[in-house]
């Protein structure tokens, strides 16, 4: 059961194709340019910038950024607008000053959005309930964070018994 709306699936296919291009370099560079052009823009840049702030990472995987942006945008039509507002709030400096987010009560939707973005980056999942979609798994930041010690479930750790040694 991989529930998703048609537009979400299409969005993922488009960017999936772009990712494939990027990774394998198989298609003509003309097509590559066209698809990248379709996706690039200030909306993506704003999302990436907000993501950097929320994750605290200067460098984020551009393919994952692309994939998450499209999934989030398909989930909420005014996503670009929400990004702009969130960026402004974050620029004020209070929300992320501490270890835990400190949004005001009025800003609760922005906190939820921030957490949804972090869920996307760290767990590779966007959306809730029947609209939830897995955008990445191995690439999700939580799996990358522990990659020195663990492989993600359904990928082997090593030959039988290799887990005896202290990590």
């Amino acid at each position, binding site marked *: 059961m991989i529930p998703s709306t048609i537009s979400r699936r299409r969005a*993922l*296919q488009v960017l*999936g*194709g772009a990712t494939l291009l990027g990774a394998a370099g198989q298609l003509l560079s003309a097509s590559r340019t066209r698809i990248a052009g379709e996706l690039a823009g200030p909306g993506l840049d704003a999302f990436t910038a907000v993501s950097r702030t929320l994750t605290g990472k200067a460098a984020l*995987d551009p*393919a994952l950024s692309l994939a998450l942006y499209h999934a989030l945008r398909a989930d909420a039509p005014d996503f670009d607008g929400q990004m702009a507002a969130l960026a402004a709030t974050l620029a004020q400096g209070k929300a992320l000053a501490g270890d835990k987010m400190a949004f005001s009560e009025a800003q609760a939707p922005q906190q939820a959005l921030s957490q949804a973005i972090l869920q996307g980056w760290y767990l590779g999942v966007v959306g809730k309930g029947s609209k939830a*979609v897995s955008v990445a798994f*191995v690439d999700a930041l939580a799996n990358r964070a522990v990659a020195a010690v663990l492989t993600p479930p359904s990928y082997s750790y*090593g*030959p039988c018994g290799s887990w005896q040694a202290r990590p």
Partner: protein
Amino acid sequence: MLDTLRHLFLALTLGVVCGVAMAAPPDDAALVERGRYLAVAGDCAACHTQHGKAPFTGGVALASPLGTIYSTNITPSRSAGIGAYSLEEFSRAVRAGVRRDGGHLYPAMPYTAYARVTDADTAALYAYFMHGVQADDTVPEPTRLPFPFNVRASMAVWNWMFLDNQPFEPDPARSAEWNRGAYLAQGLAHCTTCHTPRNFLMAEKPSLYLAGASLGTWYAPDIRPGKAGWDHGNMVDYLRTGHAANGATAGGSMREAIDLSFSKMAPQDIAAMATYLGEIAPAPAAPTAAPTAAPTAAPVPPLAAGDIAEMAGTLGAGERLYRNNCASCHQAGGEGARGLPALRGHPGLRYPTADNVAMAVLQGVWPQAHQGMPGFATELNDQEIADVTNHVMTAFGGSAVRIDKGRVASLRAGGEVSPLLLLARIGMVAGVLAAIALAAWSLRRRQRARNPGAQAA
């Protein structure tokens, strides 16, 4: 030790000369042990011991392009094995391919290589098989090749054409270690039996010694010196374990040879063989471009992005099969994990054939100890196996070599049928027809000679 052997050898020779079939004294444990080690080096068990059955009782089915050859019982049983053999007869069987009853052995028994084994080592092997192996009266399945290959006398002609039964001569210009390695590799370890391509009549081509050959399904690669990534250390590790730092992993018959033979040999013998393989002098008529060299490989593509494309459902058929069937152990990018083999840059992907990848996918790889790989013959069809094999060759090997589903089907069935059988039969029919025609012509000539005026009917 050497003195004892020399005396023993002298006694044996005298015994033979006097026409006395003489077995080694049963209490010479050292000779029997040496014979046991040499039997491991020669990997007699691989062909003569069926999995789960008593040792050396034969009955192992060896698929040959001419049909199935079953190995014989070589325990000292007098009724079913070689218990009645004298040392001379044992030597003739092992080194010349002739049975005690005078019948010829098929070169599935690598007597062409064992011809190199010294008299002393033959005596030790004899001692082992007579006194170190339990006699067992099990009669194995007999070999019945289709006509005309069941006529063993034809092997006499084949041997006359192709058998080089010169015993091993050490090369004084080489080190003792090289000579030891050469002796083992050319003789008991019989590398050439698999790794040297064969001609139309299935004899090895000396000018292509160790240049690589298909065994019908698995491909035994070119093991001549100068291959990238194959230094002495890697060769030693590979022979001892089936793995090496260059990413090589053994499968198929080589995996079995490592399990049963190489992994149990003395480290200095393995090192010697690696030394020999690293310094083989070029054969006299070697062509300048080795015909079995792999096409120049493109560099291996960089590690693909993890699984974003996978989640989006945009993977090609081969890659999708790879992800769902192979990636759990070999990982999404083919990099392996903590000893689970990497496919990325695997030496096997540089071969001129994709057969070994497809065979590993079909049958799996099952070392006697340690981690195994399952086969997918019942789960994937021929097209799927071709697709995933081609994906592996491209994405992880940068190779242009491909396999099609027809070849996969053939591998699944045990390899192509040799044209030799059909051609031999056609040849025989043609020969019979020619004989009939000749007889008819000759008869007519005589008739005309008797009746000069008669017209041809």
